[in-house]
């Protein structure tokens, strides 16, 4: 037993050391940098940043545009989730809604902007269809649409998940009590959903507030905090300590949002048991919500049509003949194919190592009595709150003078840290649900703790680990925000290469590389789904 405890402690220590090295120290470097003056520590950087009107302006720009986007996202996400859970829309349509709304997750955000330009710009597909641009896509409008596309999947999944645990029998009771429509809606749906709705709003806000890809592509003259941070760090006159200050300013709303979300969760309504039988969904309601949701999903997918039209058109917008020449050209360009291979490498490594780290962290946290196990919950909160750009900047400051600069290692480490929260919680929840007596039974049968983990726990958590793999893979494939500070000539990724191609307005290449990412992610998703289905059929 003593041996086992030592082993657990050893594992916990190693893992915590990893997090200190790859998370705490880089973030500390940002904080230190923001107080670093010409001679010693100073508040001067903050004074300078706050006294110039620029930061104030972009901060409020960001807050404003993110708020609008978050409101729209929350309403749409609610509509979609409500349609799936509380109407009698046909099952296949529900499935299409669910898959359609999550599709944008498989693409880097920087692609969204270019797709929007080719959909609604002066020569965009829809502008041509309607004879003129419907609105100006550059700037505010483009940002709002882009942010909504980006945050809708996450907000939808959050509400979808919450509604799965709602008891529909309350609606029956409400009917029997002859409640009015609005009273019923408030008590059986809105009130229990308040916490997830608030959560979805905050999540959408934070994601929009900290995203770099969308403003980089379609921001126009509407400056937001993410592009300002990029320009300050990598513009013509780099100013690292100002960059550090801006990233601290960027961190503040994210931390605030996370705290609010924690408070909101206390208002969660829990049901004793759950019945998902849809109750009393009138035909009008089904048709109304069903068609509304279908329209949203169609609009969402329509926005992405340039992605499959433009790169296969001879010379958009002059010659609409179908061609494969652009596609063949990209395949024959070794530098572009190398970039794709780099992305694949990073995604596979991130997913494999990520699974191991999430599993060990979850295991120590859910199935041991180590003192350090609480630390993992704190770590998961930190990785959730820290924006990708801030963490990326921390890596830049912390690793810039080490031999790790410019390696795949720091990119992979960044991705594992940045996306740690969800995988950790997935594993932890799965492990907590398992019978707590397995370890004791294992010990009685004279299996060592490791043997029990290997023979009993691991096989039972396999499904979750596959989901974690898929989550890590897809996110590593599409991440832009933090890696822009970390890539070098040998480690360029598709998502950052797109930014370089933007410089030369090479949209065919941008779209084809985006398609590569999309198809790769779909393939990985299908393989994982296939595996999960086979597993659940077996037993």
């Amino acid at each position, binding site marked *: 037993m003593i041996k086992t405890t030592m082993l657990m402690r050893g594992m916990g220590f190693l893992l915590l050391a990893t997090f200190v090295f790859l998370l705490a120290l880089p973030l500390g470097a940002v904080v230190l940098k923001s107080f670093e003056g010409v001679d010693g520590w100073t508040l001067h950087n903050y004074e300078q940043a706050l006294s110039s009107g620029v930061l104030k302006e972009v901060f409020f720009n960001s807050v404003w545009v993110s708020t609008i986007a978050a409101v729209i996202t929350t309403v749409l996400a609610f509509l979609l989730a409500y349609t799936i859970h509380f109407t009698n829309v046909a099952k296949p349509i529900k499935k299409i809604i669910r898959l359609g709304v999550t599709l944008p997750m498989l693409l880097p955000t920087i692609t969204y902007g270019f797709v929007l330009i080719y959909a609604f710009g002066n020569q965009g597909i829809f502008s041509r269809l309607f004879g003129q641009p419907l609105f100006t896509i550059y700037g505010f409008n483009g940002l709002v649409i882009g942010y909504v596309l980006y945050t809708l999947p996450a907000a939808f999944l959050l509400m979808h998940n919450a509604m799965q645990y709602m008891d529909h029998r309350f609606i029956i009771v409400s009917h029997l009590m002859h409640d009015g429509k609005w009273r019923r809606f408030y008590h059986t749906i809105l009130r229990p959903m308040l916490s997830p709705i608030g959560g979805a709003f905050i999540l959408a806000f934070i994601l929009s507030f900290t995203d770099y890809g969308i403003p980089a592509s379609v921001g126009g003259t509407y400056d937001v905090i993410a592009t300002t941070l990029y320009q300050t760090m990598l513009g*013509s006159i780099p100013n690292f300590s100002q960059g550090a200050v801006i990233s601290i300013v960027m961190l503040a709303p994210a931390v605030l949002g996370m705290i609010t979300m924690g408070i909101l969760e206390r208002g969660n309504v829990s049901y004793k048991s759950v019945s998902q039988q849809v109750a009393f969904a009138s035909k009008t309601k089904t048709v109304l919500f069903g068609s509304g949701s279908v329209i949203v999903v169609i609009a969402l997918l329509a926005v992405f049509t340039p992605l499959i039209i433009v790169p296969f058109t001879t010379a*958009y917008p002059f010659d609409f003949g179908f061609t494969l020449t652009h596609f063949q050209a990209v395949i024959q360009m070794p530098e572009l194919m190398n970039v794709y291979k780099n992305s694949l*490498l990073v995604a596979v490594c991130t997913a494999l190592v990520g699974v191991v780290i999430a599993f060990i962290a979850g295991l120590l946290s859910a199935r041991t009595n180590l003192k350090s196990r609480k630390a993992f919950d704190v770590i998961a909160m930190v990785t959730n709150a820290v924006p990708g750009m801030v963490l990326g900047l921390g890596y830049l400051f912390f690793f810039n003078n080490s031999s790790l600069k*410019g390696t795949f290692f720091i990119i*992979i480490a960044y991705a594992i840290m940045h996306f740690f929260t969800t995988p950790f919680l997935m594993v932890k929840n799965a492990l907590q649900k398992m019978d707590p007596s397995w370890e004791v039974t294992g010990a009685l049968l004279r299996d060592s703790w490791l043997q029990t983990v290997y023979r009993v726990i691991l096989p039972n958590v396999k499904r979750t680990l596959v989901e974690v793999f898929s989550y890590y893979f897809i996110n590593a494939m599409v991440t832009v925000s933090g890696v822009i500070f970390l890539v070098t*000539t*040998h*480690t360029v990724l598709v998502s950052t290469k797109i930014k370089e191609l933007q410089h030369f307005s090479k949209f065919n290449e941008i779209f084809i590389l985006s398609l590569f990412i999309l198809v790769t992610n779909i393939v990985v998703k299908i393989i994982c789904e296939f595996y999960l289905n086979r597993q659940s059929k077996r037993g």
Partner: protein
Amino acid sequence: MNKKAMGFLAVASSAVVLAACGNGSASSNDQVIIYSNADDEAIEVMQNTLNDKGFKGEYIIQSVGTSELGGKLLAEGKKIEADIVTMASYYIDSADAQHDMFIDLTSSKALIDETSNIQLPILGNVGSIFVNTEMLVQKGLDTPTSLKDLTDPQYKDLISIPNIMDSSTGWLLVQAVIAEYGEKEGQQILADLIGNVGPHLESSGSGPIKKVKTGEVPIGFGLRAQALDAKEEGLPIDYIDPIEGNYSLAESVAVIDKEDDEKEKKAQEIAITIANEAREQLLVQYPVALYEGENVANEPAYLKKWTSTLTVELLQQHQAIFNAAKQ
């Protein structure tokens, strides 16, 4: 899954991870890395020349925006990843003044204008206005003849220019305006111009020509050579030399002092090959004479140069004027 299979899978997958991740980071450390701010056409010429001269596989060109590359040079000095840069000449001089970071390069050819001996000019950029003639007619617009003309309200949201914050081509425009009208009137003209440009302020020097070509806007400012190319391709594009002047900038190649003799020697060879061998073709694309004996057809009508030497400090002054005009 049985125990053996699982064990095998675990070993195999960790082996793959280690091999792949290790392999990736250690790849080809002896390749010479070239950071270039040049347009893709120019990069293609350099690549073809180097491949012809037997350097295939020994180098890798990474294109970086002018402002980003400038920032990297000033911030990182000799620690920059690149062994060679091709960059606006004033940036190379300023970075060298700050970090003493480049080695001397000599060419057998005589230059028209004196430059520092740490760089060899490879191409000259000249700015001009260009228009999409079909769209001008379609929208019923007057053909502009000067930069000041572009401040006319009829061109509202119909002009695309590069941003001086990101692109040295954008500086060519600002130089022409400030030299002709002075700082005060110049700033007003820039303010009106930026007002007309609206969302079409581009970070890349080649952004405006692409927008004029695809018809996003009928009028742009950028490199004269690009408009010339488009015209020769048969597109409805024409260039207009603004009466304020066609200002020009030289782009040079320079080798970073890495204190690694062997690689530095190869970098030096590559840099000299770019300057000497690629020059002929670059001159066709960027028709500005830089070396004695070079002849250029189709000279710009109002070729001019800023009176003093271009420096990063001057750029910053002009950026400040531009930003003040933007407010």
